[in-house]
């Protein structure tokens, strides 16, 4: 077997050195009758050729985003990842290294984490950022727990236009932790009303309010007023961003007063991957740093006084603090941080702004093309690269029809709110830099043909 270096002679020699007769003697602790006889009921060894055939056949049953016009978003976005990013993250020294517990031989990982933290802090407009969470949704749930620790209150208010999957993740963890969540109803038509409802729900028990901008329907929100309201009531504002590219064009949550910002970083460097691995960005005001979950990389010096980096403040973490840790998180999204950091380095300030501008312009162009199309209404007053349309018909069926025509048109709201009968005619449509004029024309044509 190509992955196993020992030869049968080696095995014999080694058993002799150990002083046992057979390898099963080393498994003597396994209770009687529990040591498997024979093999598990699975196929035996396959060479690369055969594995590639099997995986290739599975791949061929899917329609990749690159196969045609593609407008699916709602929390994960099809962006172009430069070839150098994927090349660099596959370097053995990055790919096959562990958590940098031995900093003397992990300065590569540590320095990029430090760069990552800096980039995330700058982007979100916050003072500090950690070395990543699993993804945006688990980061959001951790942020709610963190707000509970900071405020010593345990009621979180979730805006109605928060991505419903994020809401579910927060609710699941909060419920299990015996905390309270108040989730407001979604409002695709009047996004401003959603924020007003959040403001109205804040009370003296409130630990935090969780608001997404751009929201799940693509609407943009000014968080300044709600930040003030929440903070005046002793609660924290947790801002959620699922499309990190938007931060190239929009005022940062930090500048609007957020206490904690959690974001999905998938758009930069990571790719779609059918939902994972992604990378959760987590930033906060520095006064809360010791309540933050996850790893932090910090600057220090070595025995010769040279600058170096280490994981730090680990007394927050489970491997030191055990049941008193701020979170149980251990593994993070190291390699995806690297992908994010490299892509962001390639973009730079100028490139990110340009990328955001292209995304926005493409989305505006699609909205303009839809203007006046019979049976289609764009609901958003404002948006970045994603907006919601109301269509004359069952959105899910229309999206399926369009898929048959080769256009992956967006996410029917009914997929995210499956039980809400009122919203069966909405499609959330994302448009990024990979879409061309032809793609948008194809969208309009396929939509018209499918209503």
């Amino acid at each position, binding site marked *: 077997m190509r992955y196993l*270096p020992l030869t049968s002679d080696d095995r014999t020699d080694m058993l002799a050195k150990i002083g046992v007769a057979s390898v099963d003697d080393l498994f003597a602790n396994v209770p009687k009758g529990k040591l498997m006889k024979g093999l598990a009921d699975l196929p035996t060894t396959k060479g690369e050729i055969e594995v590639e055939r099997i995986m290739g056949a599975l791949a*061929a049953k899917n329609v990749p985003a690159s196969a045609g016009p593609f407008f699916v978003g709602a929390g994960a976005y099809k962006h172009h990842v430069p070839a150098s990013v994927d090349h660099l993250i596959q370097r053995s020294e*990055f790919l*096959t290294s*562990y958590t940098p517990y031995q900093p003397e031989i992990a300065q590569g990982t540590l320095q990029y984490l430090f760069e990552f933290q800096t980039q995330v802090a700058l982007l979100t407009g916050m003072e500090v950022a950690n070395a990543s969470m699993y993804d945006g949704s688990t980061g959001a749930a951790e942020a709610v727990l963190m707000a509970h620790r900071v405020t010593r209150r345990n009621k979180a208010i979730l805006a109605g236009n928060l991505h419903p999957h994020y809401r579910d993740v927060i609710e699941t963890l909060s419920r299990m932790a015996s905390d309270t969540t108040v989730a407001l109803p979604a409002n695709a038509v009047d996004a401003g009303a959603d924020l007003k409802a959040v403001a109205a729900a804040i009370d003296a028990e409130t630990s935090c309010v969780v608001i997404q901008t751009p929201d799940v329907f693509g609407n943009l929100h000014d968080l300044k007023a709600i930040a003030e309201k929440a903070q005046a009531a002793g609660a924290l504002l947790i801002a959620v961003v699922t499309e990190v590219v938007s931060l190239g064009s929009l005022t940062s949550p930090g500048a609007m007063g957020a206490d904690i910002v959690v974001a999905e970083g998938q758009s930069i460097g990571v790719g779609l991957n059918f939902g994972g691995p992604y990378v959760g960005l987590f930033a906060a005001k520095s006064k809360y740093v010791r309540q933050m979950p996850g790893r932090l990389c910090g600057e220090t010096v070595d025995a010769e006084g040279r600058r170096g980096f280490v994981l730090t403040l680990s007394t927050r973490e489970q491997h030191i603090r055990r049941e008193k840790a701020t979170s149980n998180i251990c593994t993070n999204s190291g390699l995806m941080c690297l992908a994010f950091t490299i892509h962001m380095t390639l973009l730079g300030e100028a490139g990110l702004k340009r990328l955001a501008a292209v995304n926005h312009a493409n989305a*505006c162009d699609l909205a303009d093309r839809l203007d006046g199309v019979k049976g289609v209404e764009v609901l958003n007053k404002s948006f970045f690269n994603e907006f919601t349309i109301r269509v004359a018909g069952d959105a899910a069926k229309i999206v399926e029809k369009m898929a048959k025509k080769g256009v992956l048109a967006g996410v029917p709201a009914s997929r995210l709110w499956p039980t809400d009968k009122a919203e069966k005619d909405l499609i959330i449509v994302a448009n990024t830099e990979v879409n061309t004029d032809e793609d948008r024309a194809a969208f309009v044509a396929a939509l018209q043909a499918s209503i």
Partner: protein
Amino acid sequence: IEEPLLFEIGRAETTGVDLPAPKKVKSRLGKLARDGAIGLVGLSEPETLRHYVRLSQKNFGIDTGLFSLGSCTMKHNPRLNEKMARLPGLGDIHPLQPQSTVQGALELIDTLAHYLKELTGMAAVAMSPKAGAHGELCGMMAIKAALEASGQGHRKIVLVPESAHGTNPATAALIGFEVKPVPAQADGTVHVADVKAALTSDVAAIMLTNPNTCGIFEKEIVEIAAAIHKAGAYFYCDGANFNAIVGKARPGDLGVDAMHINLHKTFSTPHGGGGPGAGPVVLSERLAAFVPYPFVHADKAYVLVEEATKIVKGEKPFGRMTAFHGQMGMFVRALAYMLSHGSDGMKQASEDAVLNANYIRASLADLMSLPFGDQPCMHEALFDDTWLKDTGVTTLDFAKAMIDEGYHPMTMYFPLVVHGAMLIEPTESESKASLDLFIATLRDLAMSATKGEVDRFKGAPYHAPRRRLDETRAARNPVLRWTPPAPYAEAAE
């Protein structure tokens, strides 16, 4: 060669990405358009390549040398898996595409689930957890949901041996359980008598690692499971060390109710400098109903169940662990690995992992001290620092000296129950020649330590990109991001 920080060499106007000019349109950003600088810097593409290539050269990985970090299972990461994960049909698909356009992806998840259930002998698997600790959380949530569903919500105690990974107590505490320790005995294992003594009607579960963190298979595990079940509680098994027993013993046969599987430990998905992981949780019949959304039903077509209206009778999902369906990229890699090995290869891999660890144990036992006597270990060999007594050399010093010899040190000071622990896991990926060289090096170091050559250890590492780093300073006055030096800030004004 030193490499500056990105922010010390980058420039605000430089970009390594060429994009066309945006179309002229009416902005829909309103008042929220960003105003002023973000503070980011960019590098051209050649500079970016060089910067990160040079950073990589300051890292150690399994491709560069033996990585003896116990409990972390730093095994070979096949490049075939990386290639498969990048097939457009697997890597470039969106979690919310119409299900009709991702049938292969759902089939892949279902297939991997079948493999995991078959290898563990368990009834169900929750695929979505994003990493090991997330899997623990999922498993404990399932237990909590099951207890509540059967009116046993008052059970708040979780038994955890002191040798457990920190994630175990942290996970239990995160969702409101109270952690109560169980002792291990002189042979390094937990005895059923001690478990029985701790079992009260408040006990929700035990969290036991098996093989345990001392590298030993829990020999009374079947009895412990029976006792736990008899007391109305659940048996959570930490699967971090599953690598030792794949194809050799099935947790389901041992009485386990829930166990997470680190795809990045057992099934070769790369650790990537700290992630991403993937932590599917296998569940017994007793817990199978509680698998969280989303999960796959294999029917005429594959269906991703994301909502209550699609569940079948008896399914009681306890909620949702993450936005989408888990670490698909890692699933692809793990399945490619399992297909490559096959049932025969996976069994052989476990045997070789155990053989390699015992070979190290047997080859060092005369120089270094074994805390639990001369018994076989599983896939990792645990030494303590008794043998270093009065040498002036600590476990930490010894580990750092290994760096100078071209090795990644073992896990140090874990498990906590052993003084100055040194936990060595070679994995099945090492050849005998590699082990022999490693053993010879460690023997040389050990003799050097016992002879009192303290300088070789106290100052180590001498030959790494950095000498020992001041962790206290980092924690006392945390500097967690780059900030422009004062003169630069002035100049920028």
